[in-house]
């Protein structure tokens, strides 16, 4: 099957039921997207499909064929996407394992709602678990990312 990931075309030989997560990680070698639960409960595997956040652990890769897939590696070239910068400034990460998914969910939220309220953040980020409990700094960092994006001309996607 043919997939376009972060703008790059890939031809992969994968069984029809293979989730996009494992195609990305084991066949294409993009390991920034993480496995946490395998049943869309934790959000560690969140990527964008045509700009929408999806849980790649339960989406068969074939369903993503022909669509634009964006992973954490494709969010920016050098870690300077407003959400990444806000995460760095706010010192959000701890173990860091869930953060690719958190950042992808936050980036999708800001693309939809450039100035999200706390309630918007609660709704958009509720599907992303963090066992280190970085939630409070995530909340601050999403607001900070909104400011950074505004300063930078409003582009977050």
């Amino acid at each position, binding site marked *: 099957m043919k997939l376009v990931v972060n703008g790059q075309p890939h031809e992969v030989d994968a*069984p029809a*039921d*293979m*989730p996009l997560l*494992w195609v990305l*990680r*084991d*066949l294409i*070698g*993009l*390991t*920034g*997207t*993480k*496995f*946490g*639960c*395998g*049943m869309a*409960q*934790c959000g560690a595997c969140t990527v964008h499909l045509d700009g929408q956040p999806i849980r790649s652990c339960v989406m068969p890769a074939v369903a993503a064929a022909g669509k634009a897939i964006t*992973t954490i*590696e494709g*969010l*920016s070239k*050098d*870690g300077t996407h407003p959400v*990444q910068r806000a*995460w*760095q*400034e706010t*010192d*959000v*990460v*701890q*173990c*860091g*394992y*869930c*953060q*690719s998914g958190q*950042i992808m969910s936050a980036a999708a939220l800001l693309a939809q709602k450039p100035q999200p309220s706390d309630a918007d*953040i*609660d*709704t958009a*980020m*509720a*599907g*992303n*678990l*963090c*066992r*280190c*409990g*970085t*939630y*409070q*700094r*995530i*909340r601050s960092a999403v607001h900070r990312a909104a400011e950074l994006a505004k300063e930078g001309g409003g582009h977050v996607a």
Partner: protein
Amino acid sequence: MWREDMKRSDIAMHAETPSPPNPPLEREGLKGDGLERRRFLKNSALAAGGLVIACFMPVAVRRALAEGAPATKAPVSPNAFIRIAPDNSVTILLKHSEMGQGVWTSLPMVVAEELGCDWSTVRVEHAPAAPEYAHTAFGLQMTGGSTSTWESFDQLRTAGAMARTLLIAAAAAKLGVNAVECRAEKGHVVHGKRRIRYGDVADAAAKLPMPADVKLKEAKDWTIIGKPTRRLDSLAKTTGTAEFGIDVKRPDMLVAVVARAPVFGAKLRTFDATKAKAVAGVVDVVQVPSGVAVLAKHFWAAKKGRDALVLDWDEGAFASVTTASLREEYRRRAATAGTPAKVAGDVESALKAAGNVVEGVYEVPFLAHAPMEPLNCTVAIGADGCDVWTGTQFQGVDQMNVAKALGIKPEQVRIHTTFLGGGFGRRANPASDFIAEAVQVAKASKRTVKVVWTREDDIHGGYYRPMWTSRLRAALDKDGKPTAWSHTIVGQSIIEGTPFASAMIKDGIDATSVEGAADSPYLAAIPAHRVDLHSPTSPVTVLWWRSVGHSHTAFVVESFVDECAHAAKQDPLAYRRALLPKDARERRALDLAADKFGWGNPLPDGHAAGLAVHQSFDSYVAQIAEVSVADGKVRVHRVVCAIDCGPVVNPLTVEAQMQSGIAYGLSAALHGELTLKSGRIEQSNFHDYVALRLPEMPKVEVHIVPSTDKMGGCGEPGTPPIAPAVGNALFALTGKRLRSLPFRVA
């Protein structure tokens, strides 16, 4: 009996057979970091090619353990922590594992304070596994017990100071001036207007003899220690480039998923792999001591293959056990006196004579650690030893367990520590379960293999925080002051059956089962007291879980003290203050938290507050929680947290770890529970083993008590007080005392 020195010395004497120092390792086929590290070690031995500090540290803080135990000869080995390259870059070798707690930043800060380098040039790598990196108190390379900062604080400052001294000496010689006229400044040696980069004299410095003595800076002169400093691993962890164990890829590597016993203690009779082998991508199926492993080209094929195995298990006697039957047994035991851990006076007589007796039975369930990164381990066995890539907290123990499994020497086990996607104690296993199993799979299949656990494997995989039952009774005098206190604890020992048993279990008491109860600061004011213990055994494997024994004792003791305060018709804060010794650090933490919270001030309608204070890992943490209940659900709005952990290296880390400990403890207080039915764990993934989510996170305010007292830890001490603080708030709100976790208000 409880002894004060048991906390830090518990694992200490366990290097019964200290491994000889690693010889310089030079192997083919290693690139990048691996080769760099090996070069570094070799350089360390040869003292050439850039400055490498071989820091000879006596194991000064290692404390003698049992009376009569043979005195151990602490091997004096070089500890290598700093590499300064000719390009002026500074690399700090981290002997601890970064699992979120922030040592990747805070420990380099300690080195840099003395080294005088430019902080912006500091890079960090996990050190290899080697005796040089043994924990100064425990004698084995490991990360746990909230010890990393205090145990290496002097060692790392000394290493930094030695490096600075040598660099200054080398630069002074080059300039033809006296070293005392030179100073260090941001990676340069400065003499008058002349500046020499560290990198330019690193080679020369490496050839100088080690300074016999170095003077460390006084605290008032610190410019890095104590300053809020952002993490050095943020860029890697926000761009998906940080390498966790699950991301490791080796040449010709296969991925394996293992079918393990469905019931604790079950034995495999037979299995049929026909269907598994028919799954596209499956390469091999091998039996190992823990079950049957399916090896495939990628995870998905391995998992499908594993799920297609037909397995016939002899489930054994445990298959009839349920949580209800276990709880009944524990309650029965709790009604009888156990093995004494701490005794003073005649408790039973005092209870009989008292007019006002308070009594309660408390229960907490089995809990999985459930780190976000499922367990995994990559193994390649070669002619000269074994390479292991994984996120582990227990390199020193893992080396021994892998060596034993393969019949090789510990120094032939080369552990490449990756970032850990959470640890919480699960990745510090005395049996090295997930590592030893991967070694068995590699050995049986003769392949390089990465074993990956699914979330279900993790939740079902044992090594839980034990289930505990506590029965408490207190006699109060006419002023409400306790005159007798009886606490009987029932729960499995996490130490029994491990190599640490002889050191950590004394007179029938596993110190980790009673910590936080037998050494409760309230006991000093209670003339008759008794804390005793029943340690039933079971096939369910158990392990330390963030804050270990304190994860249950803080809940029990701090809730029960609240019960006593209520029975005495006294304010919970005033009641605790009166019981605590005047100079108790708990009081300082309580007072600061109460002040910042505004204890006693009116709260919004439908809200109530509760407090708790608890010492663990030598840090004193008080928390006040503001709660409400709506639609049968507990809502924690705000938590004010005060910590006295002694001198602070990085306040941002302390704040983060208090938030983290509170979130972890709230997950357990509000949701976490594993239950048994037919000897099986009923939960399987995050839909039924529920963890705290972002909308439930309270606003946490962290306040640090200014303190020059003994330095404690901060990875764990934030966890214990939150459950009792919330429970006490719920009592204040509803008048109903909740004595079991997770809290159910519906």
